[in-house]
């Protein structure tokens, strides 16, 4: 319930039956939209996850927990671990690259702030396909990097860059980088500069100030950025599909294959429900931390 409130106050009104006001009525279309296109599919997914797969992928409506048992089968464990590894590596790299960048834009850029932010958001506006294609051109055997390295004589044989974990990570980092930088940037912007001055005033050099003041005070942004990067990364399948190789099969691919290839909707649903549950738990954790932060 508290989770729902967070998602949409109007929704809680719908459910909770509060007194109707004009402002709440204004939220009705958005709530209806959310209910139809977000809650209903998730509910459907939840229902299907307890059904059985019939011949040739038909859904047979007999209640079973088999799908969940199969979902937590140890043989799928490596896939989950692999996904978690890719997602956390992506998150870590995005944070390591994103924090300095957000810091730079927030503190050192004066005139071209908006332009830089705009450029930063480009991956959000670019079609995934274009991004993937671009990376294939860059990383391919006869791609940009290999041609360059061959021409300056650094290598004789083209390096194998594509269809490796490296390429998947590059794709993931590229795609989800804005999700990390934007919350970091906004929390750095909101940080009163007086705290930084106070630290410097009391003898804190740039590093001491960063570690003892700036970073701890922007932790809400760091948490939000990490969540916004990690969660979609956990479900991503496009990068693994097109930039990855045989060893980069992720949870997203597993789920996608249940729906598209194996036609095992119940199993795919149970995997999805579990993934959503884990993400919700993560979000809840993040919000708890944020609340703790807000009470300072």
């Amino acid at each position, binding site marked *: 319930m508290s989770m729902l409130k967070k998602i949409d106050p109007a929704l809680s009104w719908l459910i909770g039956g509060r007194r109707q006001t004009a402002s709440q009525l204004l939220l009705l279309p958005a709530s209806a939209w959310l209910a139809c296109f977000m809650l209903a599919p998730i509910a459907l997914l939840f229902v299907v996850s307890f059904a059985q797969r019939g011949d040739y992928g038909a859904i047979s409506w007999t209640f079973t927990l088999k799908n969940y048992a199969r979902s937590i089968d140890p043989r799928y464990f490596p896939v989950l671990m692999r996904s978690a590894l890719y997602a956390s590596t992506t998150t870590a790299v995005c944070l390591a690259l994103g924090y300095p960048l957000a810091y730079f834009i927030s503190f050192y850029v004066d005139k071209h702030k908006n332009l830089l932010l705009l450029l930063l958001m480009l991956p959000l506006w670019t079609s995934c396909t274009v991004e993937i294609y671009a990376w294939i051109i860059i990383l391919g055997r006869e791609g940009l990097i290999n041609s360059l390295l061959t021409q300056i004589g650094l290598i004789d044989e083209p390096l194998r860059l594509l269809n490796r974990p490296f390429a998947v990570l590059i794709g993931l980092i590229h795609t989800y980088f804005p999700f990390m930088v934007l919350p970091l940037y906004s929390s750095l912007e909101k940080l*009163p500069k*007086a*705290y930084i*001055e*106070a*630290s*410097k*005033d*009391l*003898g*804190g*050099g740039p590093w*001491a*100030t960063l570690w*003892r*003041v700036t970073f*701890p*005070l922007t932790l809400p942004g760091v948490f939000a950025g990490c969540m916004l990067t990690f969660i979609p990364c956990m479900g991503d399948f496009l990068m693994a599909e097109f930039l990855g190789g045989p060893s980069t099969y992720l949870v997203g691919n597993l789920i996608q294959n249940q729906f598209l290839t194996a036609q095992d909707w119940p199993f795919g649903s149970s995997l999805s429900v579990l993934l959503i549950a884990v993400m919700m738990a993560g979000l809840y954790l993040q919000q708890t931390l944020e609340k703790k*932060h807000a*009470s*300072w």
Partner: protein
Amino acid sequence: MTGSYLLELKNIHKSFDSHRVLNDVSLQIREGEFLTLLGPSGCGKTTTLRIIGGFEQPDSGEVYLNGARVTHLPPYRRNVHTVFQHYALFPHYNVFENVAFSMRLKTLPPQTIEKEVKDALSLVALSGFEKRKVSQLSGGQQQRIALARSLVGKPSLLLLDEPLGALDLKLRESMQLELKKIQQKLKMTFVYVTHDQQEALTMSDRIVVFNHGRIEQCGPAREIYEKPASSFVADFLGNANILAATLLEILPGSRAEILLEGEIKLKVPCAEALPVAAGQRLCVAIRPEKIQLHSGPSQDASKVSLPCVLNDVVYLGSSARVLLSPFSGCAKTIQATVVKYGRSGADSAGGLNGTAPGGTIWAQLDGDDILLLPPESDS
């Protein structure tokens, strides 16, 4: 020369986006002094403080601290601490960690840190607050913690940027005295920024009055009040009435004769070196409390009486402010302070005698209370 001062500013210039904020500011501060930078907002006093603290770099000019040039040193390389206007206490640390911050950076032994924090908290009368969160403190308590945090590193100089601005009047007045007491007890040098003349007069050994990025006057509090060097200073400290006058003649015995408002001749005391020569225009200042009100012209030859229309009376509690328009045609309104306003039977001494707004009243001036000032510049 430079070595004899704790801090010295030499010919500081500073502009923001072609807007000149400081124009040739030079200043010396002695060890153990309580110096106040006073002026209206935008006069450059805070920028001066930030240049001393190292948060801004001057466009030209130098800053010397203990004889060493520190003009371009970052704040963390100067043994100068600041109490910020809104305290800037770290919200993610408790009181103890806030106070201990500068010592943690120096990685002092824990016992030392504990002792120093304890001493600092007892100095600001907040012993036992170590574990409190910053958000649990009142404004006054936050102010004290900010002070303790800045004092604990034993800086050679403490900068205070309108530290009492956010407090209510009563708390502010008690903190003024307390700050002064702490400063005297620790024999530390304080540079204090405020726009409140009362605060400046209460606490300071010396006051520097800023106006439009320049130092208008610098001197002991009493001297600034009693001998303002310009009409701006006279007005800013004590709301003096500024009137136009012409210097008629310089008399022996440090006195001069002036023509006030084009018709009243008056003998006034003057300094040896007058800013203008005989026959030239100048300004005079009269403090509101030095003007006496009577229902008729004065009989005393040494005093001057100006017939005025009583415009308004502003009740101030312990006193009242009377606004007058002289008959002489002077455009300016004159303000007079009446101390015993409203007390029955006492009005006859210096009061209004029941004169209502719109009625006529005589403002009586003593030539000895009139201050000669250079003519007002247009700036």
